[in-house]
């Protein structure tokens, strides 16, 4: 493992999946598995036009980095990239990307899954819905299911 295996970015602009996977694995012949997770803005059966993503600058990067470092340690990941967007994100667009590389497939799956579960519940981002009819809807509520998804990683 050369250099720091964790890349974290919080940005307004979209990201390019292929570019990030390329950067993660370029010149390496020791990676056996790369799992990527892309989270997208759903239109909720045509009722939602966009999400407004608010974040806590500084803490957002710090918290995602902490989660990724924990995943590297716990699952023996070779490299991790995590990118989270903020601002207005139209339906069909990307919100978040996590890439995890490992010699073996289950570690890559578990690493990316773990990062997403903790990112959902502890990275300081908040979503507000914009309705398709132009009105502003309310803030998205946190889900108990997301807490449960996170807690399964400490139950073993």
């Amino acid at each position, binding site marked *: 493992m050369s250099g720091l295996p964790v890349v974290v970015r919080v940005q307004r602009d979209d990201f390019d999946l292929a570019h990030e996977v390329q950067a993660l694995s370029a010149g390496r012949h020791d990676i056996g598995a790369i799992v990527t997770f892309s989270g997208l803005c759903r239109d909720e059966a045509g009722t939602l036009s966009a999400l407004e993503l608010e974040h806590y600058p500084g803490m957002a990067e710090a918290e995602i980095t902490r989660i990724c470092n924990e995943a590297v340690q716990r699952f023996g990941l070779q490299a991790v990239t995590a990118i989270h967007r903020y601002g207005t994100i139209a339906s069909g667009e990307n919100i978040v990307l996590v890439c995890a590389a490992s010699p073996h497939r289950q570690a890559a799956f578990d690493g990316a899954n773990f990062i997403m579960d903790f990112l*959902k519940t502890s990275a300081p981002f908040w979503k507000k819905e914009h309705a398709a009819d132009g009105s502003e809807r309310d803030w998205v509520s946190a889900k108990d299911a997301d807490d449960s998804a996170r807690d399964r990683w400490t139950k073993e």
Partner: protein
Amino acid sequence: MTAVNLVYFAWVRERIGKGEETLDLPESVITAGDLLAHLKTLGEEYEGALEHENVIRVAINQEHVDHREPIAGAREIALFPPMTGG
């Protein structure tokens, strides 16, 4: 009295009506929980924002903390609802 920078996000920010402020805190405010109780005495907007204290998350110097955490030495204290990123 010690001055502390407070930052608010999402509906906490909207209900309080501002994203940040610097406040002088009485010395009786020891923990994050004390801070929430104190803020609720400052006006209706704070009362509305912090009504359900147990759902309000607190970060001190950009790290999540418990409501029982002492705030001594804090440069920046953030209050916000449960997170919904990802």
